[in-house]
């Protein structure tokens, strides 16, 4: 039972952390026109998300490469050990 309680507490903490990280993205940005200009137009056109996706894909590709390199080195280490 103690283990169950610990697990539950951890799940709640993970959910709270995820919510804290992700919820602010949902907040809309509404600003008056006399403030310094930002990339609002780009956002309104909606296409900034295309760029963000492209960057995320490139980064994911690089990280995937890194992971596969890591695995290859692990395999080589095993071979050399034997």
């Amino acid at each position, binding site marked *: 039972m103690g283990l169950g309680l610990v697990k539950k507490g951890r799940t709640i903490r993970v959910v709270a952390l995820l919510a*804290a*990280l992700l919820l*602010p*993205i949902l*907040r809309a*940005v509404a*600003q008056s026109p006399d*403030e*310094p*200009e*930002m*990339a609002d137009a780009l956002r309104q056109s909606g296409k*900034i*998300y295309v*760029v*963000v996706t492209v*960057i*995320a894909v490139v*980064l*994911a590709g690089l*990280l995937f490469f*890194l*992971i596969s*390199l*890591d695995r290859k*080195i692990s395999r*080589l*280490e095993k071979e*050399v050990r034997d």
Partner: protein
Amino acid sequence: MKNNWWKGLAVVLLLYVAVAGLLMPVPRLAILNESIRNLYFHVPMWFGMTAVLTASVYYSVRYLRTPTPQLDILSHEAAKTGIYMGFVGLATGSIWAKYTWGAWWTNDPKLNGAAIAMLIYGAYLVLRSSFQDEQQRARISAIYNIFAFAAAMPLFFILPRLTASLHPGAGGNPAFAKYDLDSNMRLVFYPAVIGWTLLGFWLAQLASRVAFLKQKVYDKQLA
């Protein structure tokens, strides 16, 4: 797999930083404009560099206490990774400076301090490559590495604070504290620092493992 959780954490954090770093709201400031988002990419390079170089010094000290080729490799590869991150930091800072301060480089104490520190570390690589004898190379570069760290850290983080400077976090001004006190920026900035630092350690670890393998293969060929 159990020991690799931090690599998974690095992947998750970096993907989060790439998306949230571009989309989360940031303070609206003149001149900086959207370039304030560079905080998530330029600054973590220096955090990562410092962490990896600290690890390098740690291995150098351990090498001097118990000289093994493994400790020399770890210290060397960590130093190389740190130097890479430092140069990426200089390059990204230069781009940022061009579009906010109007010049690729200014004679700012923070910038020149960082450049001199990078040169000190460049000398580490030159010094290393100038030895034939492996033990001599390992010992002397371990000693130089400690000296380089002791000389570079004040150049990065202490001396620029003592004089006037354009750069945030210098000339007595408290870095981006007044902006990243903005809780929205903190939500991306701290994960970014952790993510990029972990990536630095990951790269250093991979480089070290390749060097270990190389050494093992050499040893086998000699035997």
